[in-house]
């Protein structure tokens, strides 16, 4: 089997709180012996509510943080080895939550060109990459606009283009839709899915919106720094009770199907879409 895009073994990260003199007064394990395997080209979602450690994990993937214990390999490279730092950052792009705080340029195309400039791409190729990646996210006609004039969803797509221009193998999105309205959320998700399908980029989507992950290949659910559930969306959503125990919101349709089943209807587990529910209900009538 080919090398895993991401492989974590017993990954631990502790935040250490210090007093004024710098003596540690408390440690808090944000990641607690996490094992994760993500295959190249897959679309993986990491779910969890606030404080579950999912953002800490995201920062590890880009070596913004280093493991306290355990090992994390990104594209076969150990993240605790500082020689790999820039290679890994180049190969795993990162999109953050707040669209305003991650756009550096004052013109859309200049922002997209920022990453390639940093890694020393020749000028002609930067222009080519900027054009290609803006086209890939459907923002080409805004190339000479100021980012301040764009909507939240558009800004987030520009941020994604900025990452795509570095031609990464893998893109980590840390709650990219948390500050967006429903339309912007749809825009961003569509873009991400397209990148995954057309360019074969591995996508790691970190979110707490259950609705966003029904199309993922694989899901990890995190709580208090540990992976508490993992599986395909269907497997995950068929365990409504344990999802609720981890304080996750189950999609309405899945919840409805679950309640109906509890009430005595003979429905299959893990219904994800409205169509599936309608089909299952029609079968019952016959």
């Amino acid at each position: 089997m080919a090398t895993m895009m991401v492989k974590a073994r017993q990954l631990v990260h502790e935040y250490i709180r210090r007093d004024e003199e710098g003596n540690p007064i408390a440690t808090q394990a944000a990641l607690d012996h996490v094992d994760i395997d993500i295959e190249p080209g897959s679309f993986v979602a990491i779910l969890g509510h606030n404080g579950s450690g999912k953002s800490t994990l995201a920062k590890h993937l880009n070596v913004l943080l280093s493991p306290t214990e355990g090992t994390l390999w990104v594209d076969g490279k150990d993240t605790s080895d500082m020689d790999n730092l820039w290679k890994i950052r180049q190969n795993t792009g990162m999109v953050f939550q707040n669209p305003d705080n991650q756009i550096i340029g004052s013109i859309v195309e200049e922002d997209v060109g920022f990453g390639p400039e940093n890694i020393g791409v020749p000028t002609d190729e930067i222009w080519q990459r900027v054009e290609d990646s803006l086209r890939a996210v459907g923002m080409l006609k805004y190339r000479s606009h100021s980012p301040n004039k764009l909507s939240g969803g558009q800004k987030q797509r520009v941020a994604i283009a900025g990452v795509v221009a570095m031609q990464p193998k893998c893109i980590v999105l840390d709650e990219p839709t948390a500050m967006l309205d429903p339309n912007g959320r749809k825009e961003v998700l569509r873009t991400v899915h397209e990148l995954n399908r057309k360019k074969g980029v591995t996508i790691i989507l970190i979110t707490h919106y259950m609705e966003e992950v029904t199309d993922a290949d694989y899901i990890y659910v995190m709580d208090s720094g540990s992976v508490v559930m993992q599986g395909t969306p269907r497997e995950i959503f068929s365990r409504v009770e344990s999802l609720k125990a981890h304080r996750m919101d189950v999609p309405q349709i899945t919840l409805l199907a679950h309640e109906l089943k509890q009430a005595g209807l003979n429905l299959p587990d893990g219904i994800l879409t409205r169509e599936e529910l309608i089909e299952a209900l029609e079968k019952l009538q016959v």
Partner: protein
Amino acid sequence: MLRDITIGQYYPTGSVIHRMDPRVKLFGTLVFLISVFAYKGIVGFAIVTLFLAALISISKVPFRYMIKGLRAIMILMLITALFNLFLTPGEVLIQVWKLKITKEGVMSAIRMAIRLTYLILGTSLMTLTTTPNQLTDGLEKALKPLAKIHVPVHEISMMMSIALRFIPILIEETDKIMKAQMARGASFDEGNIIKKAKSLIPLLVPLFVSAFRRANDLAMAMEARCYCGGDGRTKMKPLRYQSLDYQAYAVLILYLALLLALRVVL
């Protein structure tokens, strides 16, 4: 009130001056500033005026728009003029109590007012015809030799361009915080000056906190995109001199030489 902040405002017309290399414009501004203080006599004044008028007309920026920038320094100009008017010793024209207006005072007040006006017009012509990014790029390139003596030229220009990018965002944020405080009964334009200053505290504290949070986020985003300072960086829009720029340099040097020669001769 906050919308009036006009740092780095750009007025696109696509003129020859807009298309020039920012380094030329920086050099040109410097030359013009020197000339404003170095000219002598009515001929020198005529040359400087003609030069400025020619630049403004070539830039196609409406003159009325440029005058707007002068309003902000009206008070400064008035104070300078008054000081010159009353405090220059010389032949007394009018004397009221202890205040004397001298002939030399009137002359130097007028000269000062003209110099300040030209100064503002000349520098605003540069900001009106150059985008903030070009400006910082130009500065970085022009100051490159200083990097040899460990002046962090790249870092300074990066900070400037980031500051310019965040001005509108922070203005918006200030607006938002103001409205949030007003909704809870705060008022920002009541009472005397001390009271007004005090009422700004609940505005400034959250603004600072959020600015720091933004800075933290931005630094992380930059690092995640492989930013590690100026070494080994390539440019998406590198600055290259065109023949137009060389011509502009020639014109500028000629202009300065002419003025200095006049100063020596007269």
